């Protein structure tokens, strides 16, 4: 692994983000509009019903954006190369698939951080909602775990794009939303039917959202059990996703799909 090659991909990501209206829309505009909508929804619920319920909704939304942005960055990055017919140029350079993934993982985490800080400040300034009241350590732990999960989903989709091409490109935007209800992002897990509750705990963000709700209600508390469970599951998922990607990438070169991706 060479740092300069990882930096080269990050530089390209930066240039594309800077010059692409679509990326700016997907990253910042949607995040901005969503936080505004959920902000007003929260204000409405605060007036009409239970406070904790309203705050949990907003908290879930802010944390969910970490997953969405990082996963989007990881999966859509390769699509920009495919759409520009630049994928071959990138991969006939000495850069390895590992370096490429590392760059996209870092880029996803960085963009997530920027978007999260931006929307959390909007939430604070416009709606008086302070996500940081859960404590900085909690925020860091939540962020790390949610990023790890978004890497898992992003790498899986990346592998599928290499293997099956742009036929499945819609997954780059849509796949992660499958986990929104399943991980109980906006409501407590107990709301889910029993079967889905059992399934929910197979996904690390479920623990994170539960821990976030608990620490929001009791500031300063760190739910180590939940965080630990999320982390262990995340590591397992991440290892699985990397192995999966490796198989898909190899298969893509074997079947000729890699070059077919560019039409």
């Amino acid at each position, binding site marked *: 692994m060479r740092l300069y090659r990882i930096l080269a*991909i990050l530089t390209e990501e930066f240039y594309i983000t800077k010059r692409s209206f679509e990326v700016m829309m997907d990253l910042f505009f949607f995040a901005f509009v969503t936080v505004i909508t959920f902000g007003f929804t929260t204000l409405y619920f605060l007036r009409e019903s239970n406070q904790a319920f309203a705050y949990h909704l907003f908290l879930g939304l802010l944390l969910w954006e970490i997953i969405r942005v990082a996963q989007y960055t990881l999966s859509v990055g390769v699509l920009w190369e495919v759409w*520009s*017919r*630049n994928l071959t140029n*990138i991969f*006939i350079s000495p850069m390895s698939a590992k370096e490429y993934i590392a760059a996209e993982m870092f880029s996803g985490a960085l963009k997530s951080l920027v978007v999260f800080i931006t929307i959390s400040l909007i939430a604070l300034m416009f709606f008086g909602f302070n996500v940081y009241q859960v404590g900085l350590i909690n925020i860091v732990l939540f962020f790390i775990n949610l990023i790890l999960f978004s890497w898992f989903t992003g790498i899986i989709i990346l592998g599928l794009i290499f293997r099956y091409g742009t036929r499945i490109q819609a997954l780059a935007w849509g796949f992660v939303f499958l986990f929104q209800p399943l991980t109980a992002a906006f409501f407590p897990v107990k709301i889910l039917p029993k079967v889905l509750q059992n399934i929910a705990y197979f996904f690390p963000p479920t623990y994170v959202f539960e821990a976030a709700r608990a620490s929001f209600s009791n500031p300063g508390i760190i739910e180590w059990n939940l965080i630990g469970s999320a982390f262990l599951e995340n590591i397992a998922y991440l290892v699985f996703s990397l192995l999966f990607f490796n198989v898909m990438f190899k298969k893509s070169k074997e079947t*000729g799909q890699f070059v077919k991706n560019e039409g």
Partner: protein
Amino acid sequence: MDTILSVSNLTKRFGDFTAVDNISFELKEGEILGLLGPNGAGKTTTIHILLGITSATSGKISYFDMDFFKNRQESLQRINFASSFNTLQGKITVLENLLVFARLYDVKNPKKRIHELLEFFEMREFINKKYWDLSSGQRTRVNLVKALINSPEIILMDEPTAALDPDISDKLLNLIEDLRSSQKLSILYTSHDMAEVTRICDRVIFLDKGKIIAEDTPLGLTKRIPYAKLQLTFDADRKQVEKVLSENKFNYTFISNSVVQITAKENLIPTAIFKVSNADVWITDIEVYKPTLEDFFLQITRSEKKV
């Protein structure tokens, strides 16, 4: 000349279909080697395997005496690729694109190198233009800058002139010839344009159905066709010419009532002229068409015989 690329028994199968069938060849330092063949012959698949973006079913590739499959990064650091089918990132500028590749190849003084190359390709004024805003000729030149950015020792070119107008194609070919002589570049070149291949390639490998069916210099390949075409324009009765050609068992076709085309072995061309003029036919024009690489190509693809 040293061998800098060696391919041994390379095979690629996609399921039951064999795209590349046990081919072996070498590329020498400073050589331009043409890879020719009809569509589906396996040229592009071979190039993709040589670049590591399609995996081989079996066989061995060595760049600079290193096993490519074991030394992918070291090998790719010293080679590059240009194709009319690939483009760079459209949304970003020429300079930004080239900076990314300069960093990928760890080029020292990247901006200086980029400016030098853009100057060479007369593209400096487009440095801050978005890639998508360039014409196809300008894009091809930027692609070539990218292909040269790491000062490669080998460039693999897959139909670099496809979709270019004749003027730009000619400039590109001049440039390839310049690069070969000035930088001792070795080039593996695929094209459907036989005149282009004849002009720049030192040697040609002819692929058909994944197999190498001929390997020679362009001239050597054309010499394998023993027939030439003689075109006579005459001022006489057509029947008179027809009679003399039939009597002497020449293979001929009348293009008009005063023009006949005779296909004959090269050494029989003077005899044909002599026989026709001896029959009191006033020949007003003589043209001899020697076989070209295109004739060789057509002969192979139409007859599908092993040469």
